[in-house]
């Protein structure tokens, strides 16, 4: 949730500065984990195309994806809202779950494996290209330093 870290006077409003403050606040909050989570990654699904140029965004998105990549397949508490039949229905659901558990675990653990592999592959590609770009930039800088001054 947002807090109010800004100190802004209404007179002479400067949107460039306000936006810079917003970015600083977001950076700090992201560091503290305030903007992590699967839901956030989902909210960005329509934004990916818009931010192809934004390196920081990709890092942020990967961070969110890491949090979202594994489907929770742990056991869960079985409840029933209809009070009258609750004990019976809970017992029925538990029996049903015990029969299905094996198959769903198998299915979802495989899905988790696929998700994990895809994420690792994406991270690896990203790392590789970053290294490649870094090497090329260093090489260009070296070559430029050899040029005679204009």
């Amino acid at each position, binding site marked *: 949730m947002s807090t109010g870290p800004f100190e802004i006077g*209404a007179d002479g409003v400067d949107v460039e500065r306000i936006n810079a403050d917003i970015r600083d606040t977001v950076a700090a909050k992201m560091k503290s984990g305030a903007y992590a989570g699967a839901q956030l990654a989902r909210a960005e699904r329509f934004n990916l195309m818009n931010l192809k140029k934004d390196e920081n965004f990709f890092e942020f998105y990967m961070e969110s994806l890491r949090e979202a990549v594994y489907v929770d397949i742990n056991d869960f508490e079985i409840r029933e809202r209809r009070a009258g039949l609750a004990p019976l229905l809970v017992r029925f659901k538990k029996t049903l779950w015990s029969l299905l558990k094996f198959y769903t675990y198998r299915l979802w653990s495989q899905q988790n494996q696929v998700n994990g592999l895809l994420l690792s592959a994406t991270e690896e590609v990203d790392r590789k290209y970053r290294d490649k770009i870094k090497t090329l930039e260093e090489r260009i800088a070296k070559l430029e330093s050899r040029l005679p001054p204009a």
Partner: protein
Amino acid sequence: MASPHRIAFVSPRFSEGPTIGGAETLLRKLAERLVAAGWQVDFLTTCARNHFTWENEIDPGEKVIAGITVRYFPVDSGRDLGAFIDVQNRISRSVEVSRDEELTWHRNNVNSTALYDYLRAEGHRYEKIVMGPYLFALIYFASQIHPERTLLLPCLHNECFAYLKTIREMFLNVSGWLFNTEPERDLAAQLYGLDLSRSEVVGMGIDGFQADPDHFRRSHGLTAPYIIYSGRREPMKGTPLLLDYLDMFRERTGRDIKLVLTGSGPYDPPTRLAPHIIDLGFVTEQEKHDAMAGAVAFCHPSVNESFSIVILESWLAETPVLVHAAGDVMPSHCRKSNGGLWFRNYPEFEEGLSLLLEYPAVRKAMGKSGQRYVQTEYAWVSVESRLLKALLKVYPGRHQ
């Protein structure tokens, strides 16, 4: 007495009644100003109203509207929609397509042979022919008929279609270009290597208005704060992103903030958000302005705007804007006006909107700043002088 200047506008639709669209509105407004300045203006367009179906809904023929002679021509039948969609999908995914495939795409887009025939026969009677927006086959083919007197008003966006070979050819083939903003001009120069001495940044004047935010709130029983979006609802305009972001904002911050929508197009909101959307559909200009005036902010999530009339209107209503940072035009308006904030991702959206909610004085100051900007930069008197300069200019292009 000298005979009046004669000019034609060409656009796939003419802005009238339920036919809306920024580019169409822009072209009509410019045409009206020229009529007021004593020019003889023809507007060549199709009989279609709906930009999804392109059905011929208006009778072909001639009609005088606000002093403009509007000539309606039927849209060609027999489009191969399958071929059109096939190429369009590949272009949308940034898959390289051949020039022949691009032509297939144009041929199966919106065309009007009757309009082309008219231009072939009568086009030489016009001093200049202003055409736009760029992303229609109608403009692509019409611009080839009298390129020496054609000025393209492209409403260009940085999108995959702008990178097509045939679009580049169209830009390079015409006599000159009228842009809405400097960022749009710079984008065109960068994409096509244009000779900018053949261009003018004209834009559109925005008429001032009185707005009553309380009337809007009362008539819709609105007590909670709201943000507003006006225009077409579609993925290209960023509507799904806005819906997801606002849903997330409500969830994370616990604030009860509504979304007011005006305009057309289907959308599919998250279930939790649906009861908090006030969808007004088509509204009168007055109602739209009242709604804008009462909003915390006008949120424009599109990255494909070449001008954005609605954010300028929002500023005239003294309401700040919150726009996507990835487009060039809207953040540039915000910087120049000090009238709005921009976001790159959800966290920045959340912080920006929270700030606008928490600091009414800042919100008001931004709205005022934006209003001053529109009144100075987009007063009709300034726009009209830029438009006349552009139309009376001798273009030192390849056709002169």
